[in-house]
């Protein structure tokens, strides 16, 4: 499905066609904290949502981002889709810096990168029928003729296994189940024929019984369309199931990044080890693991000193208190940000 992109590319960046589809370079997003009239905050204090994250997603591959709530996963997704712009660093999409896009170039980017939002019950305007919801992307981008759009909508519904498609055209969101709505959300994202699809917790709001169906569908469609995908989840089993590469985030930073099997089978970063230990094993005979780390996550407000994980790390060393750990290679394509593997 390699179509000539409508995106206007500078000639120098045409070479990037063979590079990664999405690349983040030391991306930072700091949210300024509003100073209340009586709040005792220092001026210019900020929350570090995403703090110096670099990674690349090769074309056709899938990246899983995992981490606990508040670690910046969703902020990162919003950055990649240019819903917000980074405070520092660059995000390259097909070699083009996203923050430079505007007008027609931005609209062209919107056709190429799509999002599946987390909550299927909120993903579709409650006033829209499925036909309106699915035709809207076509209207915005001026795709197809008025008659042609209905056919496309029906095809899109059939593609996500909502059959008979005609029966769904006049339905409103509240008449559908969560699993069906999430399929519609997927179908709508695919209406514009994107090449990059980000899914923010695609199944966390769904019943366990329909999760596998939605995930298998996403996997099959991504393979059939050669989509580059990014899954955000706090559920490591989902990441293991669908993603080739896994990135573990902690407090806005990358803790560990590598091939999914390597990261989950032999986790190097103490935080990844903790996450895996905390994931329950479906075996009632097995005792629950003893987790010794304190549950409190340090605040992302203000400047951080040293390793963000220092307060919870069972293997903390003096160096962790002062120096933020860089990402170092711990295996083939496998990186971890921990002083245990550094020169110290």
């Amino acid at each position, binding site marked *: 499905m390699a179509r000539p992109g409508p995106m206007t590319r500078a000639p120098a960046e045409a070479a990037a066609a063979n590079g990664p589809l999405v690349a983040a370079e030391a991306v930072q997003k700091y949210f300024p904290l509003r100073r209340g009239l009586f709040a005792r905050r220092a001026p210019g204090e900020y929350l570090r949502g995403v703090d110096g994250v670099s990674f690349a997603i090769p074309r056709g591959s899938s990246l899983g981002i995992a981490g606990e709530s508040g670690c910046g996963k969703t902020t990162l997704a919003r950055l990649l*889709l240019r*819903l917000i712009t980074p405070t520092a660093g660059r995000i390259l999409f097909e070699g083009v810096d996203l923050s430079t896009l505007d007008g027609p170039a*931005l*609209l062209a980017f*919107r*056709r190429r*990168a*799509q*999002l599946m*939002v*987390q*909550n299927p019950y*909120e*993903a*579709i*305007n*409650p*006033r829209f029928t499925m036909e309106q919801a699915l035709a*809207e*992307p076509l209207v*915005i*981008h001026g795709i197809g003729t008025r008659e042609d759009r209905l056919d496309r909508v029906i095809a899109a519904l059939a593609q996500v296994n909502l059959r008979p498609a005609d029966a769904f055209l006049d339905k*409103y969101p*509240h008449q559908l189940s969560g699993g069906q709505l999430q399929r519609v*959300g997927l179908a*709508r*994202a695919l209406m*514009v024929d994107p090449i990059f699809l980000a899914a923010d917790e695609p199944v966390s709001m769904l019943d366990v019984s329909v999760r596998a169906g939605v995930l298998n569908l996403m996997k099959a469609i991504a393979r059939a369309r050669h989509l580059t995908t990014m899954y955000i989840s706090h559920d490591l089993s989902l990441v293991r199931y669908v993603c080739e590469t896994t990135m573990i985030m902690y407090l806005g930073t990358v803790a560990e990044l590598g091939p999914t099997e390597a990261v989950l089978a032999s986790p190097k970063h103490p935080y990844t080890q903790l996450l895996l230990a905390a994931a329950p094993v479906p075996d009632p005979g097995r005792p629950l693991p003893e987790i010794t780390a304190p549950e409190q996550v340090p605040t992302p407000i203000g400047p951080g000193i040293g390793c963000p994980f220092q307060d919870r790390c069972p293997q903390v060393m003096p160096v962790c208190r002062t120096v933020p750990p860089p990402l170092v290679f711990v295996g083939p394509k496998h990186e971890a940000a921990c002083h245990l593997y550094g020169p110290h």
Partner: protein
Amino acid sequence: MRSGSVDALPRPGQTWAGWRRAAGTLWGVLQHDRFAFAGICIYALFVLIALSGDIFAQLVYGARPALTVGFVAAFFVALIGTSVGIIAGYYGGWLDAVLMRLADVAFGIPYLPFVIVLVAFLGPSLWNIVLTMALLLWKDTARVVRAQVLTLRERGFVEAARVLGSSPRRLMLVHLAPNVLPIALLYGSLAVGWAILTEASVSFLGFGDPARISWGYMLQDAYISQALSGGAYNWFIPPGVCIMLVVMAGYFISRGYEELLFPRLRRR
């Protein structure tokens, strides 16, 4: 017209014995001849209409300015309030701050003195009263709509629409406006009643259009003629009931429209 209608009204205290006599005769007629009784009833109805003829005429003519002021003012109140609310809620930042401080100013200006000043400059007319309402009464709608937009803005479908490339105009008109419409219609229908009553009090103070009779004018007329203590119920109840019915009609229309627009409410 004013004194005439008061004198023509049957006053319960004055003719109590006569009423009792008449009731006794009627009871006798009803037992002997039902057709005669029906005839008497029809005759009594005609007498009642004839007696309160000028009230009936006032009621009919009063519908015109009341409905005009009510619906035109309510339309502008809802339109301005909804637009300001959506724009302030969607854009946020300095635009939100400016618009909401403007609403605060509108909250701070007392309505009647404002009308007095404006009418002093522009002259008393129905349309100037509508103008003052449009200028001052949008504030409640704007506040409530803004609050609604603030919660809608964070919902997934707005984010999804932005990812799909919706322009801000499209987001506000296609995604936000239909979702705040029920509340805008509710405030619009409340504004109908508020506008009719406001027109009445403005007329009462002598800043209304003296050439027009409205329901509000009738109420004030009855009030200063002491119709309530005089027991002239047929003078002030009809305009009061009419105002109530119009306000209710406005409310039911907005409910019906909401049902049409928001299908989840539709009964199957």
